[in-house]
């Protein structure tokens, strides 16, 4: 059941990422806790990267404020995650899904960095909303139920609470920028 959930979750993610093909040899059902931790850490860093891009391009105070919040909050989550991994004496494991997310992020950063003014702000806001929705869905339905270590699970739950707030904030930003 656990493997099936992961398979379904990753399949949903793969479908939503139509621009990047998943290698046929990768088996999403084999992702373990440490690989999921790596996915979460990678997803955090990707959002920090988007935020730095926004600070470099956007002149909109609300967008800049949101970007600063993303940096502060995601860095705080990463700090806690690294501290926990250190305590547990384990290392997150790189995997195809982390690589997959990074590859898509590269493409998105290239695309967004060509935009300026309101077009950039709208694209950044829309991406933030879609990205948080996607990652939150995965965390809620697949990652959290399947994590076995209690402390890691608690950290994911606390992270989800933060990212849900971000999703709501992003939704308001999208609305205001229309």
């Amino acid at each position, binding site marked *: 059941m656990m493997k099936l959930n992961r398979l379904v979750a990753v399949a949903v993610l793969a479908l939503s990422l139509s621009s990047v093909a998943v290698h046929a040899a990768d088996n999403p059902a084999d992702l373990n806790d440490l690989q999921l931790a790596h996915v979460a850490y990678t997803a955090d860093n990707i959002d920090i990267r988007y935020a730095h891009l926004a600070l470099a391009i956007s002149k909109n105070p609300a967008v800049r404020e949101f970007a*600063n*919040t993303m940096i*502060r*909050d995601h860095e*705080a*989550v990463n700090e*806690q995650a690294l501290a926990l991994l250190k305590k547990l004496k384990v290392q997150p494991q790189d995997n195809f899904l982390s690589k997959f997310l990074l590859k898509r992020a590269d493409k998105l950063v290239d695309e967004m960095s060509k935009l300026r003014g309101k077009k950039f702000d709208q694209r950044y806001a829309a991406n933030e909303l879609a990205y948080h929705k996607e990652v939150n869905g995965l965390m809620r339905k697949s990652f959290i139920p399947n994590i076995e270590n209690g402390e890691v699970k608690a*950290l994911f739950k*606390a*992270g989800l*609470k*933060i990212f849900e*707030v971000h999703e*709501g*904030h992003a939704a308001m930003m999208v609305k205001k920028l229309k």
Partner: protein
Amino acid sequence: MTGWIVRRHVRQTALRLVAMVLAWIMSSAQLSAAEHIVEIEKFKFVPEQLTVRLGDTIKWINRDIAPHTATARDRTWDTKRLKKGEAMSVVVSEGMQMDYFCLYHPHMKAKLVLDTSR
């Protein structure tokens, strides 16, 4: 000679009484200045409404992973950035702005209510 001793005794007793009264007043003043704790948890200030008196101390403790602030609506006072587990105190003063929020997550709002009954 006896009268002088009596007068000295009365003076000393009076001084002791004055000292005791002063000590009582001071300890009462200290007792009335309470310390309140506001915990920041799951993106909420708990309690969201707090009744305080002038001179009280309010201590905000952040229990969340995300950093937060408690910042006056008019920005006249601020706890600065509180990371997880960090705390900062503010003393309630005359004319203090009573509505506050988190600078990083502006939907997080709370208020202080001034008790002037004493």
